[in-house]
């Protein structure tokens, strides 16, 4: 019995590329059972372009998402009063350490609070903490609740989303991030 793939008439190299992409997309989705456990992240339908994001950091310096084009960027919307945000926050630093700074960055977007309040909880993490004081960025990113985390791929598109707390150094999420990093290199 011939399978659909053996009937595929493209050249071998293209076929390999197709298979690699298909396997990559399957990996990116993570298994439903893993995601149902609240461990993985969900693929964003249609992989739309990420909205703009330019916000002040703890020092008042404006940070623009556009400067990270070419990297995979994990954007986490949070607040200090949100229990699951506080619980998952340390894992943002841990996951950042798993990848090269040239490939991956974390942006933690605090919603509605000031730098002093955020600093009292987060200290000075290794990644930028940005301030969405009027929650307009949160609305532009169609965030409906805290915490919400989106992953932007190397092409500046929304690739993954998670609503509710996660441990971002969970092997399931790390595998999804590795796959996104690989996709940008092919």
């Amino acid at each position: 019995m011939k399978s659909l793939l053996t009937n595929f008439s493209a050249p071998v190299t293209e076929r390999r590329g197709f298979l690699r992409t298909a396997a990559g997309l399957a990996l990116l989705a993570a298994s439903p059972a893993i995601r149902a456990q609240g461990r993985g992240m969900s693929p964003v339908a249609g992989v739309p372009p990420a909205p703009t994001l330019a916000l002040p950091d703890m020092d008042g310096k404006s940070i623009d998402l556009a400067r990270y084009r070419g990297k995979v960027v994990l954007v986490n919307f949070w607040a200090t009063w949100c229990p699951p945000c506080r619980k998952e926050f340390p894992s943002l630093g841990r996951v950042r350490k798993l990848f090269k700074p040239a490939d991956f960055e974390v942006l933690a977007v605090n919603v509605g609070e000031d730098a002093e309040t955020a600093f009292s909880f987060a200290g000075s993490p290794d990644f930028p903490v940005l301030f969405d004081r009027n929650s307009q960025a949160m609305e532009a990113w169609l965030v409906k609740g805290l915490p919400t985390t989106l992953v932007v791929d190397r092409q500046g598109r929304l690739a993954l989303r998670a609503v509710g707390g996660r441990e971002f150094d969970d092997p399931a999420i790390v595998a999804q991030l590795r796959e996104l990093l690989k996709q940008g290199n092919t």
Partner: protein
Amino acid sequence: MLPRLSVALAGFFVSAAAAHAAGDIEWRYRAANGAVSLAANPLTPAQRIAFYLARGFSATAIRPYADACGFSFSMQNGGAGTLSTRLADWRAIGMDSRAVRLRLPAEWDLQWDKAQVPEAARIAFRWAQFQTENTFEAGDWIMGMATLESPLQGGFRLIARYQDDKGQHEVTLNQLFCAGD
């Protein structure tokens, strides 16, 4: 063997999801419908006043919210599909069968507007509520506060309706009491 294994695995996934939804919080009320779980804790007026005073509300402005029958909810989709909720569809049913809806965050916000509550406090309030409409992908879970539109005497049940590709479903929390009842 296989069916037993899959039943055991299904049980593991549901219980793992429920444990995750609980986070570090002890929930007084819990219920599930298949892989969808809902948990609630009654919130006392003092808890809510303390929380919102720290977010920029005045004691006078937050008083009506603090005095309403209020809960913190946590809902999780421990299944593989997508589901959605509309808070307007949820009902509390009293012992006398009276149905009471939940007050929507936008309705409170109108009140904050009239009371000239500072913008930062309103933003914190808005995002601390169980949102009016939510979409849960596999594994997503959402926490938030909500209040009943009017008080119910004694115990009541809360019917939380949700939608998936198979239609409308509900998960019911039984024997709820407002804090202080």
